[in-house]
Protein backbone atom coordinates (compact mmCIF):
# COMPACT_ATOMS: atom_id res chain seq x y z
CA UNK A 1 0.00 0.00 0.00
CA UNK A 2 1.32 3.41 -0.68
CA UNK A 3 1.61 5.29 2.52
CA UNK A 4 0.46 8.84 2.71
CA UNK A 5 -0.48 8.39 6.35
CA UNK A 6 3.02 8.66 7.73
CA UNK A 7 3.45 11.99 6.09
CA UNK A 8 0.25 13.39 7.44
CA UNK A 9 0.70 12.41 11.05
CA UNK A 10 4.22 13.69 11.55
CA UNK A 11 5.00 17.32 11.12
CA UNK A 12 8.26 16.52 9.36
CA UNK A 13 9.13 17.87 5.94
CA UNK A 14 7.22 16.06 3.22
CA UNK A 15 10.32 14.88 1.41
CA UNK A 16 10.40 11.13 2.27
CA UNK A 17 6.64 10.76 1.84
CA UNK A 18 6.69 12.57 -1.45
CA UNK A 19 9.63 10.55 -2.67
CA UNK A 20 7.88 7.32 -1.80
CA UNK A 21 4.68 8.55 -3.39
CA UNK A 22 6.47 9.39 -6.61
CA UNK A 23 8.24 6.05 -6.51
CA UNK A 24 4.97 4.19 -6.06
CA UNK A 25 3.41 6.23 -8.82
CA UNK A 26 6.21 5.41 -11.24
CA UNK A 27 6.16 1.75 -10.27
CA UNK A 28 2.41 1.46 -10.76
CA UNK A 29 2.46 3.35 -14.03
CA UNK A 30 5.26 1.18 -15.38
CA UNK A 31 3.58 -2.03 -14.27
CA UNK A 32 0.26 -1.11 -15.79
CA UNK A 33 2.01 0.19 -18.89
CA UNK A 34 3.82 -3.09 -19.47
CA UNK A 35 0.58 -4.93 -18.85
CA UNK A 36 -1.11 -2.69 -21.40
CA UNK A 37 1.54 -3.30 -24.00
CA UNK A 38 1.18 -7.05 -23.55
CA UNK A 39 -2.58 -6.82 -23.69
CA UNK A 40 -2.49 -4.65 -26.78
CA UNK A 41 -0.22 -7.09 -28.58
CA UNK A 42 -2.40 -9.98 -27.46
CA UNK A 43 -5.47 -8.14 -28.71
CA UNK A 44 -4.02 -7.41 -32.10
CA UNK A 45 -3.20 -11.10 -32.51
CA UNK A 46 -6.37 -12.45 -30.98
CA UNK A 47 -8.56 -10.25 -33.16
CA UNK A 48 -7.55 -12.18 -36.27
CA UNK A 49 -10.58 -14.37 -36.76
CA UNK A 50 -9.79 -17.83 -38.11
CA UNK A 51 -11.12 -18.43 -41.62
CA UNK A 52 -13.45 -21.24 -40.55
CA UNK A 53 -15.28 -19.03 -38.04
CA UNK A 54 -18.13 -17.20 -39.73
CA UNK A 55 -19.94 -14.29 -38.08
CA UNK A 56 -23.74 -14.31 -37.72
CA UNK A 57 -25.93 -12.59 -40.33
CA UNK A 58 -25.82 -8.81 -40.31
CA UNK A 59 -22.44 -8.68 -38.58
CA UNK A 60 -20.62 -5.42 -39.21
CA UNK A 61 -17.24 -5.61 -40.92
CA UNK A 62 -14.86 -7.39 -38.54
CA UNK A 63 -13.01 -4.30 -37.27
CA UNK A 64 -16.26 -2.49 -36.45
CA UNK A 65 -17.78 -5.66 -35.09
CA UNK A 66 -14.99 -5.97 -32.53
CA UNK A 67 -15.72 -2.47 -31.31
CA UNK A 68 -19.47 -3.02 -31.19
CA UNK A 69 -20.02 -6.56 -29.89
CA UNK A 70 -20.49 -6.64 -26.11
CA UNK A 71 -20.02 -10.42 -26.04
CA UNK A 72 -23.35 -10.87 -24.28
CA UNK A 73 -24.42 -13.96 -26.20
CA UNK A 74 -27.98 -12.73 -26.77
CA UNK A 75 -27.66 -13.71 -30.44
CA UNK A 76 -26.54 -17.16 -29.36
CA UNK A 77 -29.62 -17.45 -27.16
CA UNK A 78 -31.76 -15.97 -29.91
CA UNK A 79 -30.77 -18.65 -32.42
CA UNK A 80 -33.39 -21.41 -32.23
CA UNK A 81 -31.10 -23.98 -33.83
CA UNK A 82 -27.99 -23.67 -31.64
CA UNK A 83 -25.97 -22.69 -34.67
CA UNK A 84 -24.08 -19.85 -33.03
CA UNK A 85 -21.29 -20.47 -30.59
CA UNK A 86 -19.73 -18.08 -28.14
CA UNK A 87 -15.95 -18.16 -28.22
CA UNK A 88 -14.37 -19.34 -25.00
CA UNK A 89 -11.03 -18.23 -23.62
CA UNK A 90 -9.20 -20.98 -25.46
CA UNK A 91 -11.02 -20.70 -28.79
CA UNK A 92 -9.37 -19.04 -31.72
CA UNK A 93 -12.06 -16.40 -32.11
CA UNK A 94 -11.84 -13.39 -29.75
CA UNK A 95 -13.28 -14.45 -26.39
CA UNK A 96 -17.02 -14.02 -26.07
CA UNK A 97 -17.75 -13.19 -29.69
CA UNK A 98 -20.33 -15.23 -31.64
CA UNK A 99 -19.47 -17.35 -34.66
CA UNK A 100 -20.47 -20.52 -36.40
CA UNK A 101 -18.60 -23.17 -38.32
CA UNK A 102 -20.37 -23.91 -41.58
CA UNK A 103 -19.11 -27.45 -41.97
CA UNK A 104 -20.54 -28.58 -38.64
CA UNK A 105 -23.51 -26.26 -38.12
CA UNK A 106 -24.46 -23.86 -40.89
CA UNK A 107 -26.91 -20.97 -40.66
CA UNK A 108 -30.47 -22.18 -41.18
CA UNK A 109 -31.55 -18.94 -42.91
CA UNK A 110 -34.59 -18.20 -40.70
CA UNK A 111 -36.98 -15.79 -42.41
CA UNK A 112 -37.22 -13.57 -39.30
CA UNK A 113 -33.46 -13.73 -38.50
CA UNK A 114 -34.05 -14.02 -34.72
CA UNK A 115 -30.37 -13.53 -33.86
CA UNK A 116 -30.23 -10.01 -35.28
CA UNK A 117 -32.90 -7.91 -33.50
CA UNK A 118 -31.84 -9.18 -30.05
CA UNK A 119 -28.35 -7.73 -30.51
CA UNK A 120 -28.37 -4.79 -28.10
CA UNK A 121 -25.76 -2.70 -29.83
CA UNK A 122 -26.32 -3.24 -33.52
CA UNK A 123 -23.08 -5.18 -33.93
CA UNK A 124 -25.49 -7.35 -35.88
CA UNK A 125 -27.03 -4.65 -38.04
CA UNK A 126 -30.75 -4.31 -37.34
CA UNK A 127 -31.22 -2.97 -40.87
CA UNK A 128 -30.90 -6.53 -42.11
CA UNK A 129 -34.48 -7.80 -42.34
CA UNK A 130 -34.25 -10.06 -45.37
CA UNK A 131 -31.99 -13.02 -44.76
CA UNK A 132 -31.29 -13.20 -48.47
CA UNK A 133 -29.46 -9.90 -48.11
CA UNK A 134 -27.10 -11.41 -45.53
CA UNK A 135 -23.45 -11.68 -46.49
CA UNK A 136 -21.97 -13.83 -43.76
CA UNK A 137 -19.26 -14.97 -46.09
CA UNK A 138 -18.96 -16.35 -49.58
CA UNK A 139 -19.04 -19.97 -50.69
CA UNK A 140 -16.07 -20.80 -52.86
CA UNK A 141 -15.38 -24.02 -54.74
CA UNK A 142 -11.89 -24.18 -53.34
CA UNK A 143 -10.74 -27.50 -54.71
CA UNK A 144 -11.43 -28.26 -58.36
CA UNK A 145 -9.34 -31.38 -58.09
CA UNK A 146 -11.39 -32.97 -55.33
CA UNK A 147 -14.85 -31.76 -56.40
CA UNK A 148 -16.27 -34.74 -58.25
CA UNK A 149 -18.29 -32.56 -60.62
CA UNK A 150 -15.00 -31.66 -62.25
CA UNK A 151 -14.33 -35.35 -62.77
CA UNK A 152 -17.50 -35.61 -64.79
CA UNK A 153 -19.44 -37.34 -62.00
CA UNK A 154 -22.91 -36.18 -61.11
CA UNK A 155 -23.29 -34.69 -57.65
CA UNK A 156 -24.88 -31.23 -57.56
CA UNK A 157 -25.56 -31.55 -53.83
CA UNK A 158 -24.37 -28.03 -53.15
CA UNK A 159 -26.55 -26.71 -55.94
CA UNK A 160 -29.60 -28.58 -54.67
CA UNK A 161 -29.24 -27.73 -50.99
CA UNK A 162 -28.67 -24.02 -51.64
CA UNK A 163 -31.50 -21.96 -50.11
CA UNK A 164 -31.02 -19.33 -52.81
CA UNK A 165 -31.41 -22.11 -55.29
CA UNK A 166 -30.38 -21.50 -58.84
CA UNK A 167 -29.08 -18.02 -58.05
CA UNK A 168 -26.26 -18.28 -55.53
CA UNK A 169 -24.99 -21.49 -57.10
CA UNK A 170 -25.60 -22.30 -60.75
CA UNK A 171 -24.44 -25.27 -62.75
CA UNK A 172 -22.22 -24.51 -65.69
CA UNK A 173 -22.67 -27.25 -68.25
CA UNK A 174 -19.42 -28.02 -70.00
CA UNK A 175 -18.17 -30.55 -72.48
CA UNK A 176 -16.34 -33.47 -70.93
CA UNK A 177 -13.18 -33.60 -73.02
CA UNK A 178 -11.97 -36.73 -71.25
CA UNK A 179 -14.84 -39.00 -72.24
CA UNK A 180 -15.78 -36.93 -75.24
CA UNK A 181 -19.47 -37.70 -74.76
CA UNK A 182 -20.48 -36.61 -71.28
CA UNK A 183 -21.22 -33.28 -69.71
CA UNK A 184 -19.58 -31.65 -66.68
CA UNK A 185 -22.02 -30.01 -64.25
CA UNK A 186 -19.69 -27.46 -62.74
CA UNK A 187 -20.97 -25.58 -59.66
CA UNK A 188 -20.39 -21.85 -59.90
CA UNK A 189 -21.02 -19.49 -56.95
CA UNK A 190 -22.29 -15.98 -57.55
CA UNK A 191 -21.35 -13.44 -54.92
CA UNK A 192 -24.33 -11.22 -55.73
CA UNK A 193 -26.69 -13.83 -54.29
CA UNK A 194 -24.65 -16.06 -51.98
CA UNK A 195 -25.48 -15.32 -48.32
CA UNK A 196 -22.61 -17.39 -46.94
CA UNK A 197 -24.96 -19.55 -44.89
CA UNK A 198 -22.73 -22.57 -45.38
CA UNK A 199 -25.45 -25.14 -46.08
CA UNK A 200 -23.51 -26.15 -49.20
CA UNK A 201 -20.32 -26.68 -47.22
CA UNK A 202 -22.16 -28.78 -44.67
CA UNK A 203 -23.79 -30.84 -47.42
CA UNK A 204 -20.68 -31.43 -49.53
CA UNK A 205 -20.27 -35.19 -49.79
CA UNK A 206 -16.49 -35.18 -49.67
CA UNK A 207 -14.53 -36.07 -46.56
CA UNK A 208 -13.27 -32.51 -46.59
CA UNK A 209 -15.61 -30.12 -48.34
CA UNK A 210 -14.51 -28.87 -51.75
CA UNK A 211 -16.87 -25.91 -51.40
CA UNK A 212 -16.19 -23.75 -48.37
CA UNK A 213 -17.62 -20.58 -46.95
CA UNK A 214 -14.85 -18.08 -46.53
CA UNK A 215 -15.05 -14.71 -44.86
CA UNK A 216 -15.45 -11.95 -47.44
CA UNK A 217 -11.99 -10.62 -46.79
CA UNK A 218 -10.53 -13.91 -47.96
CA UNK A 219 -13.08 -14.88 -50.57
CA UNK A 220 -13.22 -11.73 -52.65
CA UNK A 221 -10.63 -10.21 -54.91
CA UNK A 222 -10.71 -6.54 -55.68
CA UNK A 223 -10.18 -4.99 -59.06
CA UNK A 224 -7.90 -1.97 -59.31
CA UNK A 225 -10.17 1.03 -58.96
CA UNK A 226 -8.89 2.61 -62.15
CA UNK A 227 -9.90 -0.45 -64.12
CA UNK A 228 -12.64 -0.14 -66.75
CA UNK A 229 -14.11 -3.04 -68.63
CA UNK A 230 -14.38 -2.04 -72.29
CA UNK A 231 -17.61 -3.83 -73.04
CA UNK A 232 -19.36 -2.36 -69.99
CA UNK A 233 -18.20 1.13 -70.88
CA UNK A 234 -19.34 0.56 -74.41
CA UNK A 235 -22.78 -0.58 -73.28
CA UNK A 236 -23.05 2.37 -70.96
CA UNK A 237 -22.12 4.96 -73.54
CA UNK A 238 -23.64 3.31 -76.58
CA UNK A 239 -20.33 3.07 -78.36
CA UNK A 240 -16.65 2.65 -77.97
CA UNK A 241 -14.97 5.44 -76.00
CA UNK A 242 -11.74 5.14 -77.92
CA UNK A 243 -10.94 4.62 -81.59
CA UNK A 244 -13.52 2.73 -83.58
CA UNK A 245 -13.30 -1.01 -83.14
CA UNK A 246 -10.58 -2.50 -85.20
CA UNK A 247 -10.96 -5.64 -87.15
CA UNK A 248 -10.20 -8.43 -84.69
CA UNK A 249 -6.86 -10.05 -85.28
CA UNK A 250 -6.02 -13.35 -83.67
CA UNK A 251 -2.93 -13.14 -81.62
CA UNK A 252 -2.20 -16.81 -81.14
CA UNK A 253 1.01 -18.58 -80.24
CA UNK A 254 2.78 -20.39 -83.01
CA UNK A 255 1.37 -23.77 -83.86
CA UNK A 256 -2.13 -22.89 -82.60
CA UNK A 257 -5.19 -22.30 -84.72
CA UNK A 258 -8.74 -21.35 -83.94
CA UNK A 259 -11.61 -23.33 -85.37
CA UNK A 260 -14.99 -21.63 -85.46
CA UNK A 261 -16.97 -24.83 -85.94
CA UNK A 262 -17.05 -25.42 -82.18
CA UNK A 263 -13.72 -27.10 -81.61
CA UNK A 264 -12.09 -23.86 -80.52
CA UNK A 265 -8.36 -23.84 -80.01
CA UNK A 266 -6.45 -26.47 -81.94
CA UNK A 267 -2.83 -27.22 -81.29
CA UNK A 268 -1.05 -28.44 -84.39
CA UNK A 269 0.24 -31.96 -84.39
CA UNK A 270 3.85 -31.05 -84.89
CA UNK A 271 4.16 -28.57 -82.06
CA UNK A 272 4.90 -30.04 -78.64
CA UNK A 273 3.66 -26.92 -76.90
CA UNK A 274 2.57 -23.59 -78.25
CA UNK A 275 4.65 -21.92 -75.61
CA UNK A 276 8.36 -21.32 -75.90
CA UNK A 277 10.69 -22.37 -73.10
CA UNK A 278 11.45 -18.73 -72.58
CA UNK A 279 8.48 -16.76 -71.22
CA UNK A 280 10.03 -13.58 -72.57
CA UNK A 281 9.27 -14.82 -76.09
CA UNK A 282 5.58 -14.72 -75.30
CA UNK A 283 5.77 -11.32 -73.69
CA UNK A 284 7.84 -9.82 -76.48
CA UNK A 285 5.76 -11.23 -79.29
CA UNK A 286 5.07 -8.56 -81.90
CA UNK A 287 7.69 -6.26 -80.43
CA UNK A 288 10.60 -7.52 -82.49
CA UNK A 289 12.41 -4.49 -83.88
CA UNK A 290 12.03 -4.02 -87.59
CA UNK A 291 15.16 -5.06 -89.38
Amino acid at each position, binding site marked *: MNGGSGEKGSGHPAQPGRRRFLGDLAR*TACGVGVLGLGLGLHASRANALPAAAIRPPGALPEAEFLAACTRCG*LCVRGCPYDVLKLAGLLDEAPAGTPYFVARTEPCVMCEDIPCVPVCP*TGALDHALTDIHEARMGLAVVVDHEACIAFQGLRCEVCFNICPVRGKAITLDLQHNARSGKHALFIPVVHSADCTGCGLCEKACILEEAAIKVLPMRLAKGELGHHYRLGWEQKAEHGGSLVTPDQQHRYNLPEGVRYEHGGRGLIIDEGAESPYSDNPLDTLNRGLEPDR
Partner: protein
Amino acid sequence: MSGGGKTGLTATLNRGWWQTRKWLVLRRVSQLGILGLFLLGPLAGVRIIDGNLSSSLLLDTVPMTDPLLFLQMLVAGFLVPAGTAVLGAALVMGFYLLVGGRVFCSWVCPVNLVTDAAGWLRLRLDLHGGINLARSTRYWMLALVLLLALATGSLAYELVNPVSLLHRGIIFGLGSAAFVALALFLFDLFVARRGWCGHLCPMGAFYGLVGAVSPVRVRADQRAACDDCMECFVVCPEPQVIRPALKGAEAGRGPVILAGECTNCGRCIEVCPQEVFAFGLRYPNRERGQGSETRSSPGLSKGAAT
Protein backbone atom coordinates in the same frame (compact mmCIF):
# COMPACT_ATOMS: atom_id res chain seq x y z
CA MET B 1 -5.47 -7.89 14.35
CA SER B 2 -7.27 -10.85 15.76
CA GLY B 3 -7.57 -14.08 13.81
CA GLY B 4 -10.45 -14.53 11.41
CA GLY B 5 -12.18 -17.12 13.51
CA LYS B 6 -13.12 -14.70 16.23
CA THR B 7 -14.51 -11.97 14.03
CA GLY B 8 -18.10 -11.25 14.82
CA LEU B 9 -18.08 -13.39 17.94
CA THR B 10 -18.96 -10.60 20.33
CA ALA B 11 -21.65 -9.30 18.02
CA THR B 12 -23.09 -12.80 17.69
CA LEU B 13 -23.26 -13.17 21.44
CA ASN B 14 -24.92 -9.79 21.71
CA ARG B 15 -27.39 -9.97 18.86
CA GLY B 16 -27.59 -13.52 17.62
CA TRP B 17 -26.53 -15.32 14.46
CA TRP B 18 -28.94 -13.75 12.00
CA GLN B 19 -28.37 -10.13 12.97
CA THR B 20 -24.62 -10.53 12.58
CA ARG B 21 -24.82 -12.23 9.18
CA LYS B 22 -27.93 -10.70 7.69
CA TRP B 23 -26.26 -8.62 4.99
CA LEU B 24 -23.74 -11.33 4.21
CA VAL B 25 -26.48 -13.89 3.69
CA LEU B 26 -28.60 -11.47 1.67
CA ARG B 27 -25.57 -10.63 -0.43
CA ARG B 28 -24.89 -14.28 -1.19
CA VAL B 29 -28.56 -14.77 -2.00
CA SER B 30 -28.35 -11.82 -4.36
CA GLN B 31 -25.15 -13.02 -6.06
CA LEU B 32 -26.28 -16.61 -6.43
CA GLY B 33 -29.85 -15.58 -7.24
CA ILE B 34 -28.73 -13.42 -10.13
CA LEU B 35 -26.52 -16.22 -11.42
CA GLY B 36 -29.46 -18.56 -11.01
CA LEU B 37 -31.81 -16.31 -12.95
CA PHE B 38 -29.33 -16.20 -15.81
CA LEU B 39 -28.97 -19.99 -15.65
CA LEU B 40 -32.69 -20.69 -15.61
CA GLY B 41 -32.86 -20.10 -19.34
CA PRO B 42 -30.18 -22.52 -20.52
CA LEU B 43 -30.79 -25.10 -17.77
CA ALA B 44 -34.55 -25.11 -17.27
CA GLY B 45 -35.84 -23.25 -20.31
CA VAL B 46 -37.36 -20.54 -18.13
CA ARG B 47 -36.32 -17.34 -19.81
CA ILE B 48 -36.37 -14.58 -17.23
CA ILE B 49 -33.11 -12.91 -18.09
CA ASP B 50 -31.02 -13.62 -21.16
CA GLY B 51 -27.45 -12.72 -21.98
CA ASN B 52 -24.85 -12.02 -19.34
CA LEU B 53 -23.54 -9.16 -17.24
CA SER B 54 -22.09 -7.47 -20.33
CA SER B 55 -25.54 -7.07 -21.85
CA SER B 56 -28.79 -8.70 -20.96
CA LEU B 57 -32.49 -8.60 -21.55
CA LEU B 58 -34.89 -8.95 -18.62
CA LEU B 59 -38.27 -10.51 -19.37
CA ASP B 60 -37.74 -9.83 -23.06
CA THR B 61 -38.22 -6.10 -22.41
CA VAL B 62 -35.76 -4.43 -20.06
CA PRO B 63 -32.30 -4.08 -21.60
CA MET B 64 -29.22 -3.75 -19.45
CA THR B 65 -25.69 -3.01 -20.57
CA ASP B 66 -22.50 -2.69 -18.60
CA PRO B 67 -21.77 1.06 -18.71
CA LEU B 68 -17.99 0.59 -18.75
CA LEU B 69 -18.35 -1.73 -21.71
CA PHE B 70 -20.55 0.87 -23.36
CA LEU B 71 -17.91 3.50 -22.72
CA GLN B 72 -15.21 1.27 -24.22
CA MET B 73 -17.42 0.82 -27.25
CA LEU B 74 -17.63 4.57 -27.78
CA VAL B 75 -13.91 5.01 -27.24
CA ALA B 76 -13.20 2.18 -29.68
CA GLY B 77 -15.00 4.20 -32.32
CA PHE B 78 -18.45 2.61 -32.47
CA LEU B 79 -20.36 5.84 -32.05
CA VAL B 80 -23.82 4.83 -33.19
CA PRO B 81 -24.88 1.89 -31.01
CA ALA B 82 -28.49 0.77 -31.23
CA GLY B 83 -30.89 2.43 -28.82
CA THR B 84 -31.16 -0.75 -26.78
CA ALA B 85 -27.56 -0.45 -25.65
CA VAL B 86 -27.91 3.24 -24.84
CA LEU B 87 -31.02 2.63 -22.77
CA GLY B 88 -29.48 -0.44 -21.17
CA ALA B 89 -26.33 1.41 -20.14
CA ALA B 90 -28.38 4.33 -18.83
CA LEU B 91 -30.59 2.03 -16.73
CA VAL B 92 -27.63 0.25 -15.15
CA MET B 93 -25.76 3.50 -14.62
CA GLY B 94 -28.83 5.12 -13.03
CA PHE B 95 -29.33 2.19 -10.69
CA TYR B 96 -25.76 2.24 -9.42
CA LEU B 97 -25.68 6.00 -9.20
CA LEU B 98 -28.54 5.63 -6.77
CA VAL B 99 -27.51 2.67 -4.61
CA GLY B 100 -23.71 2.97 -4.71
CA GLY B 101 -21.57 1.96 -7.64
CA ARG B 102 -19.70 -0.86 -6.02
CA VAL B 103 -22.95 -2.49 -4.98
CA PHE B 104 -22.26 -4.21 -8.29
CA CYS B 105 -19.04 -5.61 -6.84
CA SER B 106 -20.45 -6.91 -3.59
CA TRP B 107 -24.01 -7.82 -4.51
CA VAL B 108 -23.86 -8.87 -8.18
CA CYS B 109 -20.40 -9.71 -9.49
CA PRO B 110 -19.66 -13.45 -9.41
CA VAL B 111 -15.95 -12.78 -8.94
CA ASN B 112 -16.77 -11.50 -5.46
CA LEU B 113 -17.73 -15.04 -4.45
CA VAL B 114 -14.28 -16.20 -5.51
CA THR B 115 -12.29 -13.37 -3.97
CA ASP B 116 -14.32 -13.40 -0.75
CA ALA B 117 -13.58 -17.11 -0.49
CA ALA B 118 -9.88 -16.40 -0.95
CA GLY B 119 -10.07 -13.56 1.58
CA TRP B 120 -11.83 -15.79 4.08
CA LEU B 121 -9.30 -18.58 3.64
CA ARG B 122 -6.45 -16.11 3.95
CA LEU B 123 -7.80 -15.11 7.37
CA ARG B 124 -8.41 -18.71 8.39
CA LEU B 125 -4.94 -19.84 7.39
CA ASP B 126 -3.47 -16.68 8.82
CA LEU B 127 -1.59 -16.05 5.59
CA HIS B 128 0.42 -12.88 5.37
CA GLY B 129 2.71 -11.28 2.90
CA GLY B 130 2.52 -11.23 -0.84
CA ILE B 131 3.03 -8.19 -2.99
CA ASN B 132 1.78 -4.77 -2.04
CA LEU B 133 -0.19 -3.04 -4.73
CA ALA B 134 -1.31 0.52 -4.41
CA ARG B 135 -5.08 0.82 -4.06
CA SER B 136 -4.90 3.40 -6.83
CA THR B 137 -3.62 0.83 -9.33
CA ARG B 138 -7.19 0.08 -10.36
CA TYR B 139 -7.62 3.62 -11.67
CA TRP B 140 -4.53 3.15 -13.80
CA MET B 141 -6.09 -0.08 -14.98
CA LEU B 142 -9.27 1.79 -15.86
CA ALA B 143 -7.28 4.31 -17.89
CA LEU B 144 -5.46 1.42 -19.51
CA VAL B 145 -8.71 -0.26 -20.50
CA LEU B 146 -9.98 2.87 -22.22
CA LEU B 147 -6.60 3.54 -23.81
CA LEU B 148 -6.52 -0.02 -25.17
CA ALA B 149 -9.97 0.39 -26.68
CA LEU B 150 -8.84 3.63 -28.29
CA ALA B 151 -5.58 2.18 -29.59
CA THR B 152 -6.94 -1.11 -30.91
CA GLY B 153 -10.38 0.05 -32.01
CA SER B 154 -11.82 -3.01 -30.35
CA LEU B 155 -12.95 -4.05 -26.89
CA ALA B 156 -9.45 -5.37 -26.23
CA TYR B 157 -9.79 -5.66 -22.47
CA GLU B 158 -12.80 -7.92 -22.90
CA LEU B 159 -10.43 -10.58 -24.21
CA VAL B 160 -9.03 -11.00 -20.74
CA ASN B 161 -11.56 -9.35 -18.40
CA PRO B 162 -11.92 -12.04 -15.72
CA VAL B 163 -15.25 -10.66 -14.57
CA SER B 164 -16.98 -11.11 -17.89
CA LEU B 165 -15.00 -14.25 -18.71
CA LEU B 166 -16.16 -15.89 -15.51
CA HIS B 167 -19.80 -14.84 -15.76
CA ARG B 168 -20.03 -15.69 -19.44
CA GLY B 169 -18.26 -18.97 -18.79
CA ILE B 170 -20.77 -19.99 -16.13
CA ILE B 171 -23.83 -18.93 -18.12
CA PHE B 172 -22.72 -20.40 -21.42
CA GLY B 173 -20.98 -23.44 -20.00
CA LEU B 174 -17.48 -22.62 -21.19
CA GLY B 175 -14.97 -24.67 -19.25
CA SER B 176 -12.31 -22.00 -19.37
CA ALA B 177 -14.20 -20.10 -16.67
CA ALA B 178 -12.85 -22.55 -14.11
CA PHE B 179 -9.29 -21.46 -14.91
CA VAL B 180 -10.24 -17.83 -14.52
CA ALA B 181 -11.84 -18.48 -11.14
CA LEU B 182 -8.88 -20.55 -9.98
CA ALA B 183 -6.37 -17.93 -11.11
CA LEU B 184 -8.22 -15.17 -9.26
CA PHE B 185 -8.59 -17.34 -6.17
CA LEU B 186 -4.89 -18.19 -6.03
CA PHE B 187 -3.91 -14.60 -6.79
CA ASP B 188 -5.95 -13.28 -3.89
CA LEU B 189 -4.92 -16.11 -1.59
CA PHE B 190 -1.16 -16.08 -2.11
CA VAL B 191 -0.07 -13.11 -4.19
CA ALA B 192 -1.93 -10.09 -2.90
CA ARG B 193 -4.49 -9.66 -0.14
CA ARG B 194 -7.78 -8.53 -1.67
CA GLY B 195 -5.60 -8.15 -4.75
CA TRP B 196 -8.12 -8.30 -7.55
CA CYS B 197 -11.25 -6.54 -6.31
CA GLY B 198 -9.49 -4.17 -3.96
CA HIS B 199 -6.55 -3.12 -6.10
CA LEU B 200 -6.72 -4.09 -9.75
CA CYS B 201 -10.19 -4.54 -11.19
CA PRO B 202 -10.94 -1.65 -13.57
CA MET B 203 -14.66 -2.40 -13.38
CA GLY B 204 -14.45 -1.90 -9.65
CA ALA B 205 -12.61 1.36 -10.28
CA PHE B 206 -15.31 2.51 -12.66
CA TYR B 207 -18.10 1.65 -10.25
CA GLY B 208 -16.04 3.29 -7.52
CA LEU B 209 -16.18 6.55 -9.45
CA VAL B 210 -19.92 6.08 -9.99
CA GLY B 211 -20.45 5.33 -6.31
CA ALA B 212 -18.51 8.38 -5.17
CA VAL B 213 -21.65 10.47 -5.68
CA SER B 214 -24.37 7.98 -4.83
CA PRO B 215 -26.75 8.81 -1.99
CA VAL B 216 -26.93 5.37 -0.35
CA ARG B 217 -24.01 5.06 2.06
CA VAL B 218 -22.81 3.32 5.16
CA ARG B 219 -22.90 5.75 8.05
CA ALA B 220 -20.99 5.62 11.33
CA ASP B 221 -23.44 7.75 13.21
CA GLN B 222 -22.73 5.98 16.48
CA ARG B 223 -18.99 6.37 16.06
CA ALA B 224 -18.65 7.79 19.52
CA ALA B 225 -19.45 4.29 20.78
CA CYS B 226 -16.48 2.75 18.96
CA ASP B 227 -14.27 0.81 21.35
CA ASP B 228 -11.50 0.15 18.83
CA CYS B 229 -12.10 -3.60 18.63
CA MET B 230 -11.01 -3.39 14.95
CA GLU B 231 -13.50 -6.00 13.78
CA CYS B 232 -14.81 -3.74 11.02
CA PHE B 233 -11.29 -3.27 9.70
CA VAL B 234 -10.76 -7.02 9.65
CA VAL B 235 -13.89 -7.81 7.67
CA CYS B 236 -13.87 -4.79 5.37
CA PRO B 237 -12.53 -5.45 1.87
CA GLU B 238 -11.62 -1.75 1.61
CA PRO B 239 -10.66 -0.87 5.18
CA GLN B 240 -9.11 2.44 4.20
CA VAL B 241 -12.57 3.90 3.60
CA ILE B 242 -13.67 3.41 7.21
CA ARG B 243 -11.13 5.53 9.03
CA PRO B 244 -12.18 9.00 7.84
CA ALA B 245 -15.78 8.41 8.87
CA LEU B 246 -15.12 6.44 12.04
CA LYS B 247 -12.20 8.43 13.40
CA GLY B 248 -12.67 11.77 11.69
CA ALA B 249 -14.77 13.48 14.34
CA GLU B 250 -11.89 15.51 15.68
CA ALA B 251 -10.82 16.50 12.20
CA GLY B 252 -14.34 17.76 11.62
CA ARG B 253 -15.30 14.96 9.23
CA GLY B 254 -18.84 13.72 9.14
CA PRO B 255 -19.81 10.14 9.96
CA VAL B 256 -20.64 9.09 6.38
CA ILE B 257 -18.32 6.75 4.50
CA LEU B 258 -17.94 8.88 1.42
CA ALA B 259 -15.32 6.93 -0.52
CA GLY B 260 -16.63 5.39 -3.71
CA GLU B 261 -14.48 2.35 -3.03
CA CYS B 262 -16.91 1.28 -0.29
CA THR B 263 -18.88 -1.64 -1.74
CA ASN B 264 -21.90 -1.23 0.56
CA CYS B 265 -21.52 -4.87 1.51
CA GLY B 266 -22.71 -4.15 5.02
CA ARG B 267 -20.23 -6.43 6.77
CA CYS B 268 -19.03 -3.65 9.06
CA ILE B 269 -22.60 -2.96 10.11
CA GLU B 270 -23.26 -6.45 11.30
CA VAL B 271 -19.96 -7.44 12.92
CA CYS B 272 -19.66 -4.30 15.01
CA PRO B 273 -20.49 -5.16 18.62
CA GLN B 274 -21.21 -1.49 19.33
CA GLU B 275 -23.59 -1.10 16.39
CA VAL B 276 -21.69 1.90 15.15
CA PHE B 277 -22.62 1.54 11.50
CA ALA B 278 -25.87 1.54 9.56
CA PHE B 279 -27.02 2.02 6.01
CA GLY B 280 -28.29 5.49 5.38
CA LEU B 281 -28.12 8.44 3.08
CA ARG B 282 -25.24 10.68 2.19
CA TYR B 283 -26.90 13.65 3.94
CA PRO B 284 -26.73 14.99 6.53
CA ASN B 285 -23.04 14.45 6.98
CA ARG B 286 -22.13 16.15 10.21
CA GLU B 287 -21.60 15.23 13.79
CA ARG B 288 -24.96 14.18 15.19
CA GLY B 289 -24.04 12.63 18.47
CA GLN B 290 -26.81 10.48 19.83
CA GLY B 291 -30.51 11.12 19.81
CA SER B 292 -31.56 14.41 21.30
CA GLU B 293 -28.09 15.24 22.55
CA THR B 294 -27.11 16.50 19.18
CA ARG B 295 -23.80 18.33 19.04
CA SER B 296 -22.79 16.84 22.37
CA SER B 297 -19.07 16.44 22.70
CA PRO B 298 -17.65 13.10 21.51
CA GLY B 299 -16.20 12.35 24.89
CA LEU B 300 -19.53 12.69 26.58
CA SER B 301 -21.48 10.53 24.21
CA LYS B 302 -18.77 7.88 24.29
CA GLY B 303 -19.02 7.86 28.02
CA ALA B 304 -22.74 7.43 27.77
CA ALA B 305 -22.40 4.47 25.50
CA THR B 306 -19.91 2.47 27.51
